[in-house]
């Protein structure tokens, strides 16, 4: 489920966004649906809200959980009213935590209605709110949020954390999901990327959690240079479905890319 509302106008800052979720080679082979989902929206005053969710591959119906979680979290921020000031770290943390809690409640309601175990809707959730003065992020589970600047530098705001085993992670449906969530309030960035675990092994040095700049820089330039949202999404989907990517990642892949434009670039 996605909300692709295009580039915004009528404000000083404009975001260009390209976002897609593609089925991994493993899910294509097994004839399973894409269990990843994303959602984003552009608010007035140059605010971008984006979410990525990755349904747990080992359980049924996780594609429902991921879509509901991403959509609910984005809507929660979009309808929250006045955003906290850039110095109010606790205010931002509370805002994002509330959005994740609403997503949890949405999943609990859905599980009840469908009379299934909550774990059947298990999903990760990555949420980013970018305002002209700051970038706030929160993440439950794996995947990562990376930002870049015009000088080509990149840095990770969240990391794909896991316990002893690389194939276990925390999901939004886990009891301690919100307590263990990663949160950060960072300076504004020119570029933003949110992605699911299907991409992390080719986009990050997993040992250190460092973004691989030669991976991100061309993608950031691409989204900044493509004014048509639909065209950008088509090209991104085609790239992520290409054999070069698919042979390196068996899992579903979701990537939300955003580039902040200003002044004469618009």
């Amino acid at each position, binding site marked *: 489920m996605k909300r692709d509302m295009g580039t915004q106008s009528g404000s000083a800052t404009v975001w260009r966004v390209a976002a897609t979720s593609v089925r991994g*080679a*493993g899910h294509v082979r097994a004839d399973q649906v894409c269990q990843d989902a994303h959602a984003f929206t552009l608010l007035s005053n140059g605010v971008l809200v984006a979410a990525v969710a990755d349904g*747990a*591959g*080992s*359980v049924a119906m996780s594609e429902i959980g991921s879509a509901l979680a991403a959509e609910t979290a984005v809507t929660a921020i979009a309808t929250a009213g006045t955003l906290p000031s850039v110095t109010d770290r606790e205010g931002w943390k509370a805002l994002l935590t509330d959005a994740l809690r609403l997503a949890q409640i949405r999943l609990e309601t859905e599980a009840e209605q469908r009379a299934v175990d909550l*774990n059947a809707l*298990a999903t990760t959730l990555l949420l980013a709110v970018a305002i002209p003065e700051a970038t706030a992020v929160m993440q439950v589970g794996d995947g990562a949020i990376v930002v870049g600047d015009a000088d080509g530098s990149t840095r990770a705001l969240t990391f794909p954390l*896991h*316990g*002893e*085993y*690389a*194939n*276990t*992670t*925390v*999901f939004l*449906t*886990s*009891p301690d999901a919100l307590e263990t969530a990663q949160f950060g309030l960072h300076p504004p960035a020119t570029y933003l990327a949110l992605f699911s*675990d299907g991409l992390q*092994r*080719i*986009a*990050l*040095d*997993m*040992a250190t959690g460092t973004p*691989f700049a*030669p*991976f991100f820089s*061309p*993608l950031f330039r*691409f989204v900044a*240079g*493509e004014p*048509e949202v639909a*065209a950008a999404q*088509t*090209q*991104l989907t*085609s*790239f992520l479905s*290409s054999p*070069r990517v698919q*042979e*390196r990642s*068996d*899992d579903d892949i979701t990537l939300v890319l955003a580039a902040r434009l200003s002044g004469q670039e618009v």
Partner: protein
Amino acid sequence: MAETGRLEDAVEFFSNPEPRCPCVLLLDVSDSMRGQPLAELNAGLHTFREQLVRDPVASKRVDVAVITFGTVVQVVQNFIPITRFVPPTLTTQGYTHMGAGILLALQQLQSYKKALRELEMDYFRPHVFMITDGEPRDEPEHVLERARKQLEAEERSKGVLFFAIAVEGADLERLRKLVVRDPIDLKGRSFQEMIDYLSKSVSALSQSRFVEDAQQPMPPPGTI
């Protein structure tokens, strides 16, 4: 307008080492396996390897070890990437020292996990598949009790996923008293079916992600 071709040409990929997916085959080679069953098991090890090597993900991640139990319990093959695994030709010998076999499997896993940690390699939760056509025999009760307790502790601390696969002749009731997870009943099925089930399970395990605290049941035979 940017071209997709340009994206494909421009984006470079980081190459991380694949996480390891340790898998122990704990095999009953007691005298009751003599003849046809052992011949089928030996052939089955080749099929197991071939099926996993064909899987694009499992082939890169699965490390297999083979431990046998008769009267003697031994590591026939220590952990090795599946692509480099040369299936051994097993021979039958003696009674069914299943408890000692379980203890050796758990011990091998402990030291392999320690080695992976020292190498800073990521790894998945390990699994053991114990294939038996019988029940513990001629083994001191205290050894069996120690195996049962240690396995229970390892399962509780999520140190291992231990699956007992019962083939023709196995005593399911006795197995249930020894292992935590309900044994997988493949009695009355061919070894070929058993091996097929085994390699499909390992393929699935090598690419699945687990809900941290949920029980992880194996899919019943015939569903994968």
